[in-house]
């Protein structure tokens, strides 16, 4: 069956269902409803019948976003103001996936782009950390790291090694310690407005499937980011050493060893791959 009349009918229903105001408030849409939908034998108009679905659209999606973005909800001033944001977001970016877990995928960018939320660094940070937790929640599973590959590799192979980071790991820089704010909200305490302070945070899902977050050093964030993008270890270390003013990568080596040990213990590293000739 081509799109034809079924597609036209479905487009009209979706237009009505995703509106922020009752169908009857729009004369044109109400007329379309009259043309397509029968009144009910219990006295409901076609517009009122469509409104049953419209009301459910908002009742379903706004609480879903609020559950997914607790830090953002707090940062914008609480549930009532978060609802304004959620309605604006869903009106601008209606859901484009069957997966309700991904409903808020565009919300961090929306917060950064739309008044009155754009320019609010705390709201921006809160949106990003909440979304990082959502992504970590159901990121792909991978086999745990096998340390035996390390003992087999000669020392000169390390600069060419690529470090595979677990799919759940999200490493980000924030202008506020929003990971602490999120944890305080989860613990049920009444947090105070956090002072601005550059904070580098990793969010991940641990081996027991619990979601966790931890602050890390700026150089560690830079290295982790470069490795996650696929840079070989030597190249990534050189870039981080240059950017941090450490001179050459050898000065960074002790810290890299310490970070690597901690990353493998936390499950952030899931594989180390050496070039084939090693």
């Amino acid at each position, binding site marked *: *069956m081509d*799109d*034809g*009349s*079924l*597609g036209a*009918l*479905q*487009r009209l*229903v*979706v237009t009505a*269902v*995703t509106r922020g105001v009752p169908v009857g408030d729009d004369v044109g849409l109400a007329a379309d409803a009259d*043309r*397509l*939908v*029968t009144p*009910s*034998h*219990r*006295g*409901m108009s*076609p517009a*009122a*019948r*469509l409104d*049953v*679905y419209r009301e*459910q*659209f908002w009742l*379903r*999606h706004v609480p879903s976003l609020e559950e997914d973005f607790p830090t953002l909800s707090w940062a914008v001033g609480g549930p009532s103001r978060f609802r304004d944001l959620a309605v604006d977001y869903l009106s601008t970016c*209606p*859901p*484009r*996936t*069957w*997966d*309700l*877990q991904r409903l808020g995928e565009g919300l961090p960018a929306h917060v950064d782009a739309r008044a009155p939320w754009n320019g609010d660094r705390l709201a921006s940070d809160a949106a990003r950390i909440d979304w990082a937790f959502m992504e970590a*929640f*159901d*990121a*792909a*599973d*991978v086999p745990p790291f096998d340390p035996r590959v390390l003992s087999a590799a000669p020392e000169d192979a390390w600069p060419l090694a690529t470090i595979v980071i677990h*799919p*759940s790991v999200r490493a980000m820089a924030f202008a506020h310690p929003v990971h602490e704010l999120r944890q305080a909200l989860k613990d049920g305490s009444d947090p105070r407005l956090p002072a601005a302070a550059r904070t580098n945070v990793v969010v991940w*899902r641990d081996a027991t*499937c619990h979601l966790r977050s931890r602050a890390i050093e700026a150089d560690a964030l830079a290295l982790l980011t470069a490795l996650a993008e696929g840079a070989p270890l030597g190249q990534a270390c050189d870039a981080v050493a240059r950017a941090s003013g450490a001179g050459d990568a050898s000065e960074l080596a002790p810290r890299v060893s310490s970070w690597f040990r901690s990353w493998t213990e936390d499950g952030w590293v899931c594989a180390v791959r050496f070039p084939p000739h090693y």
Partner: protein
Amino acid sequence: MGYREQHEVPDLGVGVGLRRPHVAQVLSGAPGAVDWMEIISENYLAEGGIQRVHLEAVRQKYRVVPHGVSLSIGGADAIDKAYLARLSDLVRRLDAPWFSDHLCWTGIGGIDVHDLLPMPYTERTLAHVVERVKRVQGEVRVPLALENASTYLEFRESEIPEHEFIAEVAERADCGILLDVNNVFVSAYNHGFDANAYIDAIPPDRVLQIHLAGHEDKGSYLLDTHSDHVRADVWDLYRRALRRCGSVSTLIEWDQSIPAWSVLVAEAHKARAVRTSTLATCIPGESAWTTGP
């Protein structure tokens, strides 16, 4: 040979829909609180995470059947191949005897409103749904049970009663039916048709599963909220469906105001008692409970 026998569709007894607040209790308790479990497919399609771990653990204790809400079998958009691939993988992982979704559509133009939107029931939409059901079953390779959804509006262009439409889809596409008795009651109230006549018109051997749930009275319409106990009128309809269909897997859905696990289990036990007493009074051959009408 009837459809259920032909496809070796088992009677799983009486089960409940597995919801997040009950997972810990289900995992820590002994198996057998209910006969089987149904999951919302979409909650278990991710490539990793705790949901997959939980599902594997639940599967060690109960037979699990996936019930979807996003297939959009009546949609004008193309079927989402990536979604279908994940669904097929889930069905295989569960070794499910069937899978189910609704006779509805969920969006258009890439927008998904996450609701079970009603179809216009016409010859054209019938052919459209039949073709899509065939394609989906070809991909997933176990029977699809198509559920009658609760609906709150009817389209002027509809020319076929819903019960005839769903029966015809099942016959032409050779698929099963998930008969939601509460949905029949809700839609009958909302649209003014006879719920008993609806039940009587469904081809009994195509019914692979029955759903029971509670609903809310909103004054001018009933809303299928899955937020309460099954109403008395719906239990009566269930008895009628059992007399026609025989021993068919039955499931209690409860999605809002989710009660304690013990309350849900008690509702399942009530369904089991109703099922046992109703089937005990059926005389095979007099009803249509072993073969089609």
